[in-house]
């Protein structure tokens, strides 16, 4: 006990550098997002005003606070474009997450039931695409899905269709890309849960007369729900703000909120509106984020492997 306490002293010192770094470069920046979301748009460099003066003391700060403008948020709520973007993002993220659970669960289950000696290889095979560039994997799909791409040629050769199908710039392509890119994020936490499960529970169920299907429904599924939740949040949260996949694979008539933010920032150069979009997005994602952190902290710090 005392030895552990001695050890924890220096270990706590180790926290200083990462804590300072994350405060400076993760927490503080979101303060700036909040601040600029309350500013006016001006055509200048940088394209916003006013700044909260950091040097003017309390009075100047109060004067600045009085000037803050909630107009950006009002225009977000009033403009159908933004509202529809948020709705589309949430719909796409929910549907993709459901698809990912449906596809990821059988894969993870299959992996967990492999002979133990083969499991590391299977895990490696699932992880490798995760290490391969995200952008390159989406580009790989453009290769396959384009007008004269492999998919259309295979379908034509098999006489499934008689003229090339439009795959690119559709929601189908976008969902395909999302499921493809996020599959490892769903499979790995699920696999970790399923592999850790005590198989003797299934034997007990079988002894008590359960069919395999019923044993799965009554034993395996409830025990793996935490893995499902971890995988689902690991996919859902970033998909809501996804930019690259819808930008390259979906059509441009309906945008997800990540694309709208990108557009406001890079094309319209409207930093205050882009910041307001980010603030609202953070508010939308706050609850899933908190739940995810709880799950993650428990799984990493639990150490019960």
């Amino acid at each position, binding site marked *: 006990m005392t030895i552990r306490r001695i050890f924890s002293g*220096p270990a706590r010192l180790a926290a200083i550098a*990462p804590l300072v770094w994350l405060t400076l470069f993760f927490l503080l920046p979101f303060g700036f997002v909040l601040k600029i979301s309350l500013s006016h748009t001006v055509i200048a460099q940088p394209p916003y005003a006013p700044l909260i003066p950091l040097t003017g003391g309390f009075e100047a700060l109060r004067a600045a606070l009085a000037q803050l403008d909630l107009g950006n948020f009002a225009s977000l709520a009033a403009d159908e474009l933004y509202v529809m973007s948020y709705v589309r993002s949430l719909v796409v993220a929910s549907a993709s997450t459901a698809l990912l659970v449906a596809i990821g669960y059988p894969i993870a289950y299959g992996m967990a039931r492999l002979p133990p000696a083969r499991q590391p290889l299977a895990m490696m095979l699932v992880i490798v695409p995760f290490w391969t560039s995200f952008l*390159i994997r989406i580009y790989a799909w453009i290769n396959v899905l384009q007008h004269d791409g492999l998919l259309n040629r295979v379908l034509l050769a098999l006489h499934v269709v008689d003229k090339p199908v439009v795959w690119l710039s559709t929601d189908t392509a976008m969902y395909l890309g999302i499921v493809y890119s996020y599959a490892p994020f769903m499979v790995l936490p699920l696999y970790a849960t399923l592999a850790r499960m005590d198989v003797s529970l299934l034997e007990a169920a079988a002894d008590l007369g359960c069919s395999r299907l019923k044993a799965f429904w009554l034993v395996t599924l409830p025990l793996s729900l935490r893995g499902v939740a971890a995988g689902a949040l690991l996919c859902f949260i970033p998909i809501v703000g996804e930019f690259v996949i819808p930008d390259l694979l979906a059509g441009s008539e309906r945008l997800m909120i990540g694309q709208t933010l990108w557009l406001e920032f890079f094309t319209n150069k409207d930093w205050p509106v882009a910041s307001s979009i980010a603030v609202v997005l953070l508010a939308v994602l706050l609850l899933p984020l908190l739940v995810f952190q709880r799950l993650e902290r428990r799984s990493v710090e639990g150490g019960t492997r």
Partner: protein
Amino acid sequence: MRARALAGLSAFNAVSLALGLAFLYLPIVILVAYSFNASRLVAVWGGWSLRWYGELLHDRAMLDAAWMSLRVGVCAATAATLLGTLAAVALARGGGFLGRTLMSGMLYAPLVMPEVMTGLALLLLFVAVDAERGFWTVVIAHTTLTMCFVAVIVQSRLAGLDRSLEEAAMDLGCSPARAFAAVTLPLIAPAIAAGWMLAFTLSLDDLVIASFTTGPGSATLPIRIYSEVRLGVRPEINAICALVIVAVALLIVAASLITKFAGGSRDAAAPL
């Protein structure tokens, strides 16, 4: 341990596993194959050729971007490994300290935070302090993102370690710092190495955060590839993508060899 009947792979399991892996790998295989296509037209197979790799050598902008990405990746991964390992040690061995909840919150949030938000937030910070945007701002941004992944990997390795080894070293007269250096560090070294490589590949991969935080004239490889990809499929892009894939594959093989020879556990390479 495991009942034989249950350990066996049913036909359903085998098929779903095989289909899943085919889904994951087929597009990448096709991409690499087409990078050797002699024909400029994607629909036409013109025989095997290294032509597009040759053309890449003359693409100055692409080569500059690749060099920028490599330098950013090495700097960011090194800084992230240092900071991420420190954070993991503090969380796994520090007990309950002031700011612990804050730190673990700030460590897990970037793992899932949409990149457009992290990118925008960092850019606004850099503009507010009037930092010149370019190489170093991207390094800072990537360090912030990837240190969290390093921390998760190292922390799960630390959580799985037998603490009695450290205690034995201290019983034998080691100072805590010495016990850490002599006992703990060698044991978590494979996880640290895997963390560095994951950080490097994530940095090499990132488009969104780099787009926000870089300045004019310093495009990274993904920014360059993205601007080309928007215009459609080109064989030169297939070639550069194939090269990146091979480079990353070599890194992974190196990582798994390090893990193997160091006698590390198999979850050292598991990112999450």
